[in-house]
């Protein structure tokens, strides 16, 4: 899980071009949106593409989005769960 979260942080910084943020500065449980990392709806789309590109995971139910993308940890848990299913 730790390894996956570290990889995710690096991918988020790269995909969203977060110029002033270092991957290690993102907390495992830090909210990604609004008051946390400050991401917005366009970033949410970028994160969906990130999951497809890097982990071959499609989000079937868009209503799950807020839950999956709450933090790096929730993203990692979702990826792990999906990979287990596959």
């Amino acid at each position, binding site marked *: 899980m730790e390894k996956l979260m570290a990889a995710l942080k690096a991918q988020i910084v790269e*995909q*969203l*071009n*977060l*110029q*002033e943020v270092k991957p290690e500065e993102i907390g495992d449980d830090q909210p990604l949106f609004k008051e946390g990392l*400050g991401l917005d709806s*366009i970033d949410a*789309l*970028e994160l969906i*593409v990130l999951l*497809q*590109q890097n982990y071959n995971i499609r989000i079937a139910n868009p209503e799950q989005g807020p839950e999956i993308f709450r933090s790096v940890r929730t993203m990692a848990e979702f990826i792990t769960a999906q990979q287990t299913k596959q």
Partner: protein
Amino acid sequence: MSIYIQGTGCVSPLETAAEGPFPAVVNPAYDGARLKVSDPDYKQWIDIKQIRRMSRIIKMGVAAAKLSLQEAGVEKPDAIITGTAYGCLDDTGVFLTKMINQQEEMLTPTSFIQSTHNTVAGQIALMLSCHAYNNTFVHKGFSFESALLDSIMILKEGKSKHILMGAMDELTTHSFNIISRFNRFKKEPVTHTELLHSTTPGTVAGEGAACFVLGTEKGDNSHARLTGLTTSYKPGSTAEIAADIIAFLAVHEIAQEDIDLLITGRNGDSEGDIWYDHVERTLFPDQAVGCFKHLCGEYPTAASFGMWVGCKVLSSGQVPADVLFKGNTPEKIKKILIYNHYKGTHHSLILLTGC
């Protein structure tokens, strides 16, 4: 009705992205036949969270817009009008490359959103929360002039007080390589001091953004009035453009000798400069002549940089040594005619008057 240029802002290969006079040090960095913008620290105008999504042209356009609004003392204009020939070329390239590489699947939204021609005007409006008229003109070598014409017409309707208008174009490695195939650029090394005297075909590629706040009232920082504008598409000969210039001046009740400074779009291309040679020789043999494309390079909206130079000359009453091409600085500079053409097809005349 007079139209005043209340504020100007410019991002170019020179250190122009600051309020104040024409830069004292002029040393554009020629990279072969290519001139790149000297990027200022864009964070002084753009929030760090927004800047990460912006390509260079958006940052250039926003910076020029903010500078011009700042100088004019205007927070929110009544209209935002831009001109661009190439639009957001870099992001268009990013998006198209991803389309090909990823076989049209899993495309990210950011580069698509930022790839449209009206992105710059839209981004400025978003940053200013300006819901007013917003338009972008994409007409090759007349993109800037079309935006200018629209601004003039709106101001003449009397419903708008301040209009933010400008033009921007960026050059990418990809576009430079493509345009180079048409032999548009110099093959031999050249410097900015040599370019205008070159006798070979081709010029130097450039890029930049220049914005202006236009209004019907004289502002604290207004130094110029936009007195006239006209365009001529594919004039048949140098004699025809000379006749067009005489007619243009006559419409504005100005004699040729009333022009204190002629600023031309001379770019060192032996094939294109014959237009300027003819006009200088036959219409303005005794006047001082200034040039600007050795400082910004050639691009479809370069006339906007020429107009910015004209504004700086009128505000200071001086012609910078690096701008003066022929003659001596006139004792008084009241009227400036800017004559520019792009690729010999798109010719434009802009008349500025001091105030």
